[in-house]
């Protein structure tokens, strides 16, 4: 097919007639700006060839011009199979279709629609069939160039036909795909889509679940059967042991052995008890013997003691009178010495009284010397106290104090100062008294004679006899007020102090200071008398002490019977006499005391001797009396004989018991033997207890095991285990069967798939061969990998790359190259269909686009190639025929 010309009217922006001409074989380029209507023209060609003229589809309505009242008309002029055809179709309004062949109308209306399809080898139908066919493959609309070509069924048929004409048919390919689909479907019923595991709801998963269930059931059954087996084994052991324990012979033997042991133990214990009894009796007999012997010894000792005491009593009676005489003599000597001592003591008392009197006299004489001093002191106190009283009386009359005087002086100084100031400022009264006025002129109270001049500080009366009285009043000045205040204060101060002026005040103050000086002198004197604090009290104290001294002297004189106190010489003489007498008396007293002590000792010794003899005599007599109670003289022999007989009897009894004890001890088992028998008894009793306890435990265990076994038996665990085993085996076989079936199906599918892929590679070789030159234009050495249905799977350069991972520009370039190759393949097999690319190769860089132009030029050698582009400058190097759109204005 070769398009020669295209005319449109009422199509898109072409409301009027527009014609595209300049078509030729090879490359045809329509380069125009956007919105010129390139895509509209592309759609117009498609509609003209493939749509029924009376169709009202949305596609057609979109194609019509909005403002055109005319039908949408398309006329296409093309060559095909050596003939020239013109098809003209009007759509929407007044639809029509006319087809002419080599200038001759051959069909109209619907016939024309079908005729054109027949000519182009297309199945009648809708636009869908267009997409499925070669036109759908080679006519690439705006934006479609980016998509890899996916030939529809019709296009695939065309390609397959083209390929099979070269390499023959791919035999069984469709059956193989169908078989693969079926096998895959069966596998997928069992496995997931990735085939890595069983599908959850598939037969394999269910079989495995069943297998797991039965494995668990088998394990459970195995455990139960094992437990039952163990229980049987335990029960057998327990029963065997139970039989052993309940063996009557063994039990009787054990009981008999225990009874014998107990009997022997009882015998030993009885023997031991008898020995203890005999030992007690022997001991008792020995004690009885010892008692009798003791009593015999005591009787004999008592008799001997009576005899001895009687002899002693006689001796003591003989010694007692002499001792009494010695005692009386000693007592008489002592009495004499006592009397001499009493006389000496009386004399000493008298001496003591004399010494005491002398002492009091000495003291009184001493106090008498104190009395004169007290009298002098009292006089001094009374004199100083009188002076002080006088001074204090005088001081009380002086009311002025130094502060007052100082204040008066200060006021006088201030007044003098003010007066000086006032005088300086005041008017001066100057009077010159003439002789006639002598004595008649008075200023105030002052008689003025001669010249008088004075400052007028206060209203001043000048009396001139009775002639006139002139009062001069100075002008008021603030200092007058101050002076007045000071003057008032001074007057008040003088009045308070009782003085007339400051001189008097100073004189009084001087006197006051003299009195105070005298007073301090009196106090110094009182201090010397130690009475500065209270002279009156001190005087009273001295007077009191003086009275006491006098009374004491009087009392001594009265006591000693003297009229006056002795002198010192007399005192010294009397004191010497007393001392000599005292020495003599002391010597006599010591001598008498030694004699008295000696006599006292002699008396005490005599008394002790006499008392000792008396006491011993009394004791002997008492002892004799007591012993005679125990052993009367007349019964002494009888008692002795009886005790001798008792001792003999006890001795015999004791010997008998001892002999019996020895005999029994020799016959009885010893303690080790008894202990052994006790241990044996304990052991046998414990063994019997253990035996009974074990028996009870065994019976409990047997009962428990019996219950467990019966329960297990009732549950039929053996049968259940066998069933679970078989079920598990069945489940395992089923799993294995399914798995083997899956493996077989996978092997079959993979084998068929591999063979199909190998066949497909061979089958697609013509496509790859046609594609190879185009690919080499852009991607030297590259090979495309094609999948089912001519789908581009990837490109192999240095390595295999997925088509989807290539860049957008590269994908578009490859997609266009594949279309070119398929177009070439079809063209070589008679399917010459123009290739139309509408706004393709958008993302090509400068280098690539030139390579693509080479590829386009290569394709254009086999078939017409129409390129619609808005990039005039970029597509200029493509060359080829330049198509122009001429509207009605440009048409002749």
């Amino acid at each position: 097919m070769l398009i020669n010309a295209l005319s449109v009217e009422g199509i898109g922006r072409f409301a009027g007639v527009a014609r595209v001409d300049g078509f030729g074989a090879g490359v045809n380029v329509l380069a125009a700006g956007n919105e010129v209507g390139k895509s509209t023209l592309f759609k117009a060609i498609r509609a003209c060839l493939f749509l029924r003229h009376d169709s009202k589809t949305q596609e057609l309505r979109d194609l019509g011009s909005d403002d055109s009242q005319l039908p949408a008309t398309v006329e296409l002029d093309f060559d095909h199979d050596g003939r020239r055809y013109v098809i003209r179709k009007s759509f929407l309004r007044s639809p029509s279709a006319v087809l002419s062949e080599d200038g001759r109308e051959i069909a109209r209306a619907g016939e024309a629609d079908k005729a054109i399809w027949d000519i182009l080898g297309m199945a009648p139908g809708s636009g869908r069939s267009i997409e499925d066919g070669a036109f759908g493959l080679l006519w690439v609309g705006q934006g479609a160039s980016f998509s890899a070509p996916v030939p529809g069924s019709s296009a695939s048929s065309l390609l397959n036909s083209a390929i099979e004409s070269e390499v023959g048919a791919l035999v069984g390919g469709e059956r193989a795909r169908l078989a693969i689909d079926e096998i895959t479907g069966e596998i997928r019923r069992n496995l997931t889509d990735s085939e890595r595991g069983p599908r959850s709801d598939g037969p394999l998963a269910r079989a495995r679940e069943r297998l797991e269930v039965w494995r668990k059931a088998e394990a459970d059954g195995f455990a139960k059967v094992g437990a039952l087996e163990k229980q049987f084994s335990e029960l057998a052991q327990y029963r065997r042991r139970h039989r052993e324990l309940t063996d009557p012979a063994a039990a009787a033997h054990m009981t008999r052995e225990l009874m014998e042991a107990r009997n022997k133990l009882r015998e030993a214990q009885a023997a031991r008890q008898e020995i203890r009894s005999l030992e007690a009796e022997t001991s008792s007999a020995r004690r009885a013997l010892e008692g009798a012997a003791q009593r015999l010894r005591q009787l004999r000792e008592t008799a001997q003691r009576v005899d001895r005491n009687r002899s002693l009593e006689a001796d003591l009676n003989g010694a007692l009178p002499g001792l009494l005489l010695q005692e009386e003599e000693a007592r008489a000597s002592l009495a004499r010495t006592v009397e001499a001592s009493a006389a000496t003591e009386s004399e000493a008392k008298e001496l003591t009284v004399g010494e005491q009197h002398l002492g009091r006299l000495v003291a009184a004489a001493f106090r008498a010397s104190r009395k004169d001093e007290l009298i002098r002191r009292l006089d001094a106190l009374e004199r100083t106290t009188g002076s002080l009283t006088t001074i204090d009386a005088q001081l009380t009359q002086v009311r002025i104090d130094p502060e007052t005087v100082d204040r008066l002086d200060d006021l006088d100084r201030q007044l003098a100062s003010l007066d000086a100031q006032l005088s300086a400022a005041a008017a001066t009264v100057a009077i010159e008294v003439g002789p006639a006025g002598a004595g008649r002129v008075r200023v105030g109270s002052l008689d003025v004679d001669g010249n008088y001049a004075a400052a007028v500080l206060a209203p001043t009366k000048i009396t001139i006899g009775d002639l006139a009285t002139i009062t001069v009043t100075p002008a008021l000045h603030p200092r007058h007020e101050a002076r007045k205040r000071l003057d008032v204060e001074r007057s008040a101060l003088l009045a308070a102090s009782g003085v007339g002026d400051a001189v008097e005040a100073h004189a009084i103050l001087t006197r006051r200071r003299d009195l105070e000086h005298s007073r301090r002198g009196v106090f110094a004197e009182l201090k010397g008398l130690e009475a500065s604090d209270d002279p009156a009290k001190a005087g009273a104290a001295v007077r009191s002490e003086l009275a006491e001294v006098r009374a004491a002297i009087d009392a001594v004189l009265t006591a000693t019977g003297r009229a006056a106190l002795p002198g010192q010489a007399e005192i010294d003489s009397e004191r010497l006499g007393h001392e000599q007498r005292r020495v003599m008396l002391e010597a006599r007293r010591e001598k008498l005391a030694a004699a008295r002590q000696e006599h006292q000792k002699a008396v005490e010794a005599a008394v002790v001797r006499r008392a000792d003899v008396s006491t011993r005599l009394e004791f002997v007599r008492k002892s004799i009396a007591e012993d005679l109670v125990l052993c009367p003289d007349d019964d002494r022999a009888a008692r002795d004989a009886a005790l001798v007989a008792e001792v003999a009897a006890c001795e015999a009894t004791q010997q008998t018991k001892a002999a019996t004890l020895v005999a029994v001890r020799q016959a009885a088992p010893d303690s080790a033997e008894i202990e052994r028998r006790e241990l044996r008894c304990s052991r046998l009793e414990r063994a019997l207890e253990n035996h009974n306890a074990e028996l009870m435990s065994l019976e409990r265990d047997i009962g428990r095991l019996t219950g467990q076994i019966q329960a297990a038996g009732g549950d039929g665990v053996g049968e259940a285990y066998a069933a679970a085993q078989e079920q598990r085996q069945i489940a395992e076989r089923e799993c294995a069967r399914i798995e083997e079936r899956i493996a077989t199906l996978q092997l079959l599918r993979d084998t068929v798939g591999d063979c199909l892929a190998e066949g497909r590679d061979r089958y697609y070789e013509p496509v790859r061969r046609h594609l190879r030159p185009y690919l080499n234009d852009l991607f030297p050495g590259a090979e495309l990998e094609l999948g089912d249905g001519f789908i581009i799977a990837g490109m192999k350069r240095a390595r295999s790359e997925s088509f989807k991972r290539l860049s957008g520009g590269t994908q578009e370039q490859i997609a266009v190259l594949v279309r070119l190759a398929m177009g070439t393949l079809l063209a070589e097999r008679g399917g010459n269909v123009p290739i139309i690319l509408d706004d393709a190769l958008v993302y090509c860089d400068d280098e690539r686009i030139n390579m693509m132009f080479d590829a386009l030029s290569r394709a254009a050698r086999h078939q017409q190639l129409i390129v619609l582009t808005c990039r005039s400058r970029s597509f200029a190097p493509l060359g080829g025929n330049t198509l122009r759109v001429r509207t009605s204005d440009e048409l002749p």
Partner: protein
Amino acid sequence: MRIIHSADWQIGKVFKQFGAKEETLRQARLSAIERLGVHARENDVRHVLVAGDVYDSEAPSAHTLRAPIERMKTFGDVHWHLLPGNHDPYRPEGVWDRVAQLGVPENIHLHLSPIPAMLDENAALLPAPLLRKSEFEDITAWMGAAPTPPGALRIGLAHGAVVDFGSGGEASNPIDPTRAAKAHLDYLALGDWHRTLQVGAKTWYAGTPEPDRTGGQEQGTALLVDIAGPGAPPSITRLATGTYRWVTRPERIDNEEASADLDRRLREEPDLSRLVLRLKLEGSLPLAAYGAFRRRMIDLDAAVFDLDLDEASLVARPTQADLEAIDFDGVLRRSADRLKKFVDDSSAAPDLRRRAEEALVELYLRVAGAVREEAA
């Protein structure tokens, strides 16, 4: 003296591999007891000796425990002498105590200890019960010294494997094959071997009354034993007691004709519906014949009680015609050729070769078999 010698009832045995048919087989084992009772009455036999393994398990369910007792009760004029075997050894509180606790009637005798029991005034039974599953000593050894009344028959009853008898026995439990002579027995009734077998002049295995496995006896049997008197050789008559025949057939088929012939021969078997059949097949079949063989087997499986096919040694050998039936050329044919090459590769693992063979058959059945079936 006339007795019936039976053994290995194994009541309660499970047959899960038979699925829904399991209960039928379990009931068949109980029916065998009734058949023994009928035989006893018909042959005027008062004593049926069961030489062990009455039960299949030491711990059967309560229903399983009662079922044989109830069957024996219905034959009150027959004395049933039951002996513990290795499947149901006598252990305290075990299955036999449970049976005893049920309150067995007077015509059922449990021989739980090796103590002679008088069958009548002229015959003594010397039972040798197993007290555990596996005994290492000959449990019949005591029979030689066992006292019996003078002139009385001495009949031994035991369960175990005759020494050097081979590996067919299930447990060690050795029994001296000369025990009958050594113990002056007039007959030694043995159990354990699931096949009727004479061991000596007076020593027999009765076999099971209802088979339970392939490879053993095909038909369930018991022995009718006639003993004229002390020292006389016993006269043995086999009695059929089983319902189902358990048949194992090793067959070789290498072509369609052999396959058809096998099918014909099998269908000539009596009582097909009571046939438990195991076919151990060997040979090689063309794919077409193999497909036909499979269809025949599907039909046969519906005809017999149960069919177990062992095809481990049967190989599918595709012929040129088989391969051409898949396709003359193209993808599927190449796939078949490739699989065949794998099958024929003797260096490949057997499992993988077998899988390739299955895949080839699968391919054939999917591609050619379906076509042929449609054509048929």
